[in-house]
């Protein structure tokens, strides 16, 4: 990474601790990513983003702030980014995906909290992540219990707004969510001093849709018999989409897709045609959580699709762009977001339908249900997924893990046994 020490000092970060993170990342990334063969050239940009992850983008955000702009930090794919960008602000994902931050979170949270929440809280309180320092306001949501309480802890350290996400999807819940979006517009307007008009909101709906379309195009290339991009690389692209400038992100993803589509035409795959194709479903994989993908792909199988928040749940549905009044736009947003199927809803049959549909579309040979430890919602829903997939004759492996490396070999054994079962 280039020298950003002055910037980090200005952000009042814990430099000594942060250095440890900066030292570990290149090795981890090199071992997992750069060791892959025949990678698409278009990945260079994304490699660069990772190499400079605590430098380049944070510097852009600070520049935006110096011009009077605001930065919002978010933790969930139900938070409508459109509203934030419409007010001339920038939204950035803040979920923690590294074990490095977990002990910091454990100082204030119960041990039986999921690592994603621990890492997110730890990154803030330990002052070791520039994104967590930069964000002027955090936007939380009422999804799982762990997060709801974590917001109250974070609120003593940073301005927070909480969006009330419904827990069911009845008509009145969607109406209620539309009301929440209106309130959120108000909060964002007050905080930024900018008005959200139908004009700007319409533009920002298109902006975010374009980013989603680019990711949809990327995932479509993974349906090819000879997959042109590894699951690891595709996951990285999705993870970066949470941080990067949406316009540039769409551009870079589309550029990568041009190359991938050419590769498909040339029949140039990154895995042999007989490699087993895996769908991963479950809890989100925040950057730099690449653990399961790495295990699967070093065992000779390829991950072809993620039914995750860092996957299809992030971009599958688009917002209707035809609305011209603010009310109609808010309605379109509410409807779009309520199509996303997270285990925090009850009942949540849509997720099971999604998994089965994606298995067919991506010709997956098997499904790995990935659960972060102590996530009660997803691990409970696993039972229903197992029943549904058994009925369809779709092989399933359930895995529960955290961010640490200690169960790496045990996971490898399970994954390899699963692949042997699929007839590797």
């Amino acid at each position, binding site marked *: 990474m280039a020298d950003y020490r002055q910037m980090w000092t200005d952000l009042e970060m814990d430099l000594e601790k942060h250095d440890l993170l900066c030292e570990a990342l290149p090795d981890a990334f090199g071992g997992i990513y750069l060791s892959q063969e025949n990678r698409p050239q278009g990945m260079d940009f994304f490699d660069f983003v990772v190499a400079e992850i605590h430098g380049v983008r944070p510097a852009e955000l600070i520049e935006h702030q110096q011009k009077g702009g605001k930065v919002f930090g978010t933790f969930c794919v139900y938070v409508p980014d459109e509203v934030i960008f419409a007010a001339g602000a920038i939204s950035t994902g803040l979920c923690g995906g590294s074990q490095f931050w977990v002990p910091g979170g454990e100082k204030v949270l119960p041990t039986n909290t999921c690592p994603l929440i621990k890492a997110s809280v730890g990154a803030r309180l330990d002052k070791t992540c520039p994104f967590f320092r930069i964000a002027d306001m955090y936007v939380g949501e009422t999804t799982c219990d762990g997060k709801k309480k974590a917001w109250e802890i974070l609120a003593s350290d940073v301005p927070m707004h909480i969006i009330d996400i419904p827990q069911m999807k009845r008509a009145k819940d969607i109406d209620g969510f539309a009301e929440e979006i209106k309130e959120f517009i108000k909060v964002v307007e007050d905080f930024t001093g900018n008005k959200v008009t139908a004009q700007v909101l319409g533009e920002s709906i298109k902006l975010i849709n374009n980013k989603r379309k680019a990711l949809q195009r990327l995932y479509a290339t993974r349906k090819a018999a000879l997959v042109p991009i590894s699951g690891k690389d595709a996951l990285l692209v999705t993870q970066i989409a949470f941080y990067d400038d949406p316009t540039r992100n769409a551009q870079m993803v589309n550029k990568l897709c041009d190359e991938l589509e050419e590769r498909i035409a040339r029949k140039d795959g990154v895995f042999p045609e007989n490699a087993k194709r895996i769908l991963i479903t479950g809890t989100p994989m925040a950057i730099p959580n690449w653990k399961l993908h790495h295990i699967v792909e070093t065992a000779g199988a390829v991950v072809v699709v993620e039914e995750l928040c860092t996957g299809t749940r992030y971009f599958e549905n688009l917002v209707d762009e035809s609305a011209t009044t603010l009310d109609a736009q808010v309605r379109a947003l509410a409807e779009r977001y309520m199509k996303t199927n997270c285990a925090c809803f009850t009942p949540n049959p849509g997720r099971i339908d999604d998994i089965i549909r994606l298995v067919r579309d991506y010709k997956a040979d098997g499904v790995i249900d990935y659960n972060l430890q102590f996530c009660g919602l997803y691990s409970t829903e696993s039972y229903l997924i197992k029943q549904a997939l058994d009925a369809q004759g779709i092989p399933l492996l359930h895995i529960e893990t955290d961010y640490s490396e200690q169960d790496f070999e*045990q996971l490898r*054994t*399970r994954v390899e*046994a699963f692949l*042997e*079962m699929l007839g590797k």
Partner: protein
Amino acid sequence: MIVAGVDVGSISTKVAVLTPEKITYKMAPTGWSPRETGLATYQGLLQELGHSEDDVDFVVGTGYGRISLPFVSKAITEITCHARGAAHLVNDSTMVIDIGGQDSKIIKIDQKGKVLDFVMNDKCAAGTGRFLQMIAAALGLDVAELSELSRGKTPLTLNSMCAVFAESEVIGLLAAGRDKGEIVAGLHQSIARRIASMAQRMGKAARITFTGGVARNEGLCSCLREVLGAEIIVPAECQLAGALGAALLARDYLS
């Protein structure tokens, strides 16, 4: 054709050699070097049989040490190997329960010993051989004595599911003057329940093959029989199913 299977587990290493005439086995404690023990046990058995490594056409390595064995032709997980070996030892069984030193696994299999589904517990010591060892030590007993001691005893209810807490609970019961046999019977029941709840997630099975060193514990077997309401069969070679399966897979691979 001569083939071999080498199963390097956390506690013991087992080797099976298959010649056209017979199957022979050798076991040794794994110790601190899986790589050296694996090789030494393998070479030792070949020597006893009057063969050299060059005579062997294919070797499959399995167990947690499988990746550290340079001499194997192929590494296959213990799940797949256990399933294959267990199906060879016991006919018409549709499920394998294996309780090893560090983990326990439940495998659903077809007639040929192909894996249909599996679950594995390796996170928590409760429900593994290690747990039994810990408790035996707390009671001042050897694991081999547990079964005999619990015979005909009414199981005491143990509340702790976690190995660490169970250990202190057992110490507490001892201090309260409770009968060791009843404590052990309770211990067997709690492990059986734990295994059963894993097994029941895999659906029903009428005939279950029970393997791993812990399968020698008759007291635990009868608890499992009761809790699962199934026939539980413990083959004489219960500790060798993995090595045997590895050797059989080596033979499958060549033909």
